[in-house]
């Protein structure tokens, strides 16, 4: 569990700075969730994650599985009526976790056969995305 000790306002500032997004812009229409290809597996889904952040429940979101399931496909940001890009917010949230020295992925967890099969770019990206 990641327990952040900084004041709430600090984390909020971090999230907004790192993502370049303004949390209060979101009016909770849910269009991001509606179009997200991985929302079926996410917990919380994009619009709910933003709502939790608006409410100051930062730890809840930082410790969730949802943020690791975002495929950075940009559908949400492309269609959001208020110009909020949740993909960028998820990227910022993962960065905050990783910068707290918590790796999400280790080599041992990956199937060996898969490593020899799958394209390089998948691993390069995964290690940039999931490790400190």
């Amino acid at each position, binding site marked *: 569990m990641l327990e952040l000790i900084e004041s709430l306002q600090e984390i909020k500032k971090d999230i907004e700075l790192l993502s370049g997004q303004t949390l209060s812009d979101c009016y909770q229409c849910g269009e991001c969730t509606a179009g997200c*290809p991985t929302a079926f597996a996410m917990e919380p889904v994009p619009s709910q994650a933003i709502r939790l952040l608006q409410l100051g429940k930062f730890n809840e979101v930082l410790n969730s599985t949802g943020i690791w399931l975002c495929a*950075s496909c940009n*559908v949400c940001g492309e269609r959001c009526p208020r110009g909020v890009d949740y993909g960028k917010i998820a990227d910022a949230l993962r960065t905050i976790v990783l910068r707290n020295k918590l790796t999400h992925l280790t080599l041992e967890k990956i199937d060996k056969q898969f490593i020899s099969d799958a394209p390089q770019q998948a691993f390069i*990206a995964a290690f940039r995305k999931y490790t400190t």
Partner: protein
Amino acid sequence: MKQIAYYPGCTLYTKSKNLDLCARETAQILGVELKELETWNCCGAIYSTVQDDLANQVAPIRNLIEAQKISNKLVTLCAACYNVLKRSNHNLFLPENDIYRRRMMNFLDTEYDGKTETVHYLEVLKNDIGFENLKTKVKTNLDGLKVASYYGCLMLRPSDELNFDDPDNPTMMDDMFAALGAEPVEFPFKGECCGGYVLVDKPDVATRCSQTILESIVDAGADCVATTCPLCQYNIDNQQKLMSKQFNLPVFYFTQLLGLALNVDQKILNLDNHYIDPKPLLKQKGLLK
């Protein structure tokens, strides 16, 4: 022969030779030399949107600088490279990133004005060669082959940074296939994400994304799929083995089908490097002996 700087990227040098070699060969036939950069670094395979992460863009920018020795454009084939290189350049030259840019130039110890344009090979085919012109060069008409052009997310979004094609209704690859005599198939998932990078961490999630796309392609009556990205190719081709439904649908790189139409040598086409063997389909359609 006209030379354009070319950036193969990491995967094309290894697992996706068929995407790379076909492109070089077909370009040659069409009168353009894809001249590989003398030295290049891996682009990073993913574009970090974290605002203070511009340092990750040193590698992409270095490649763009290197390209200037050859041309003012840099051609990419892999959708991920295209996405990373183009966005890096676009965002670095936004006015709000002035300070970062100056810092990076100091670090790289060079001057660069952002003028190298990242283009995808499809754009070269459309703009430099022309689909009408391409039509006249076809040796094996892909007549009767129903192709679903799958663009995925990396070519299309964010549309304001990439400006490649309409993000909701891309047609560039379809137009190319029409020029080759094939029959482009409309389906609503051309730009949906195949699950991409979550593959490594959560293969089941990625597989379900890919399966949804395949279902839509099969519903639309396509014989095969064409992609521009090694990761999409892998997700949609190889992962068929994990899907709850069997599709048996071959997945090509668009350059392979282009090569086929231009009678490129079978060795270069590299049709063996697939999970679903495409040869029976091609034979059935009379496109392969």
